[in-house]
């Protein structure tokens, strides 16, 4: 048996050594971690317009330089507010996002604010041949935790080009299918966000199979709550961007 004093000293020294080692490592690698995270998020944005980038292109398999190249040459970033006004880089920075571009806006933080005070990142893609696409970022709640995604709209502001989703902790094989099942995600291609009469519907995930081919996609069996979460997220999320996008196309 060791004395109590020995135990305390031993534990104290051990704690200090371990804490020092880990914090040094964490600080030392922070830049690389941030860079990797940024590229990961950019790939998710590009995944929504995969079909525009060429046949058989998989955003998740792109090289880092390729991703950054597309962002530098083909993508314009804009941050907008709830009323559909553009927000300048300085203004975004003053809200606490260093860098001030759309890619620096943290939707997780924005979602905690009241609706009227939120700001929204928007990516405008123009291909080399001049075709345009608008990629909007949406965020909502799944069954266990948050879900989020990127939706690409054609410049008619009606047709969906593609979508990509991700989640914090949905059940693998059920709710997590929104990310893992690429054929489910592919259903969003060419859906419309308005019905025949021109009323805003967004794209709905329908339990038991899509009934209206125009704006509904099939649900996922066993994941009704997550699927309803996706429907809600898309309905409110896309709506935030519509006022601004409409002013853009009127010009």
């Amino acid at each position, binding site marked *: *048996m*060791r004395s109590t004093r*020995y*135990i305390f000293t*031993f*534990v104290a020294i*051990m*704690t200090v050594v*371990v804490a020092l*080692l*880990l914090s040094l*490592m*964490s600080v030392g*690698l922070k830049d*690389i*971690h941030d860079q*990797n*995270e940024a*590229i*990961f998020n950019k790939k998710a944005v590009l995944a929504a317009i995969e079909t525009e980038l060429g046949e058989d292109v998989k955003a*998740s398999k792109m090289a880092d330089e390729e991703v950054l190249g597309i962002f530098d040459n083909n993508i314009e970033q804009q941050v907008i507010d709830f009323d559909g006004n553009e927000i300048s880089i300085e203004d975004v920075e003053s809200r606490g996002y260093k860098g001030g571009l759309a890619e620096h806006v943290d939707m997780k933080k924005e979602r905690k604010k009241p609706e009227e005070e939120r700001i929204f990142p928007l990516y405008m893609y123009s291909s080399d041949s001049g075709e345009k696409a608008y990629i909007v970022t949406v965020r909502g709640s799944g069954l266990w935790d948050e879900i989020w995604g990127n939706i690409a709209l054609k410049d008619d502001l009606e047709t969906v080009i593609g979508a990509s989703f991700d989640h914090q902790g949905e059940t693998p*094989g059920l709710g997590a299918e929104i990310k893992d099942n690429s054929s489910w995600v592919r259903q969003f291609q060419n859906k419309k966000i308005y019905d025949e009469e021109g009323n805003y519907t967004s794209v709905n995930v329908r339990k038991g199979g899509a009934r209206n081919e125009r704006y509904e996609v099939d649900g996922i069996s066993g994941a009704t709550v997550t699927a309803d979460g996706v429907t809600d997220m898309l309905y409110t999320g896309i709506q935030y961007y519509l006022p601004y996008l409409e002013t853009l196309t009127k010009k």
Partner: protein
Amino acid sequence: MAEVLAPEKKEGLFSKNNKKLLTDPLDDNNPITVQVLGICSALAVTTLVFPSIVITIAVVFVCAFSNLLTSLLRKSIPSQVRMIVQLVIVATLVTVVELSLKAINFDVYKQLTVFIGLIITNCIVMGRLEAFAMANTPWKSFLDGVGNGLGYGLILIVVSVVRELFGKGSLLAGTPLEMKMIGATSEYWINTTADGWQSFMFGWYQNNNLMVLPAAAMFLIGIYIWIQRSRNTKLVDIS
């Protein structure tokens, strides 16, 4: 508590006894199939070969160095708090692995982040610390850690090769070395829709979705144990 009482005489670095420490966990004393430790992560990460290899490397690293550190400190660790000290050592090493992987390969990190955290509670690591490293010399403990990590990895890789091949038709997906073995497009080595012998022989073939689910790993580990015990009869319990 001690499984092997270390003889205090001089031994070569790779003497017969030491080699046994390294090779025993691969078969006779395999942590998964014989000691039945670490099953949970073996079921969860083995859908694809590449993540299994990454987890194997991580477990070998954590197991070896936590054994080494614990063994070096074994005479000064107060026995009243030894479990906590072991846990801190393991947790530190796992965090080191996690931070490094996040910098080296972010996609794999995203995929494995939950399981890497779970190495801390992987019963193999704590089991070896308590049963071996607390009572043996550092070099022996290090070898024991490497051996047990590899024994765990062996099962992981065997199971994941079967699961990926029959579940997805590919091997090593997600790496530049990806091999597409059998599937319904021209990218695959055996294209089940192409004319000629391929569609004649394999036109009926479909990927087995069961293999993607964790239950498949349970069956495969069971089959592995069955084969292992019928070859190696001394492992069979007589009861």
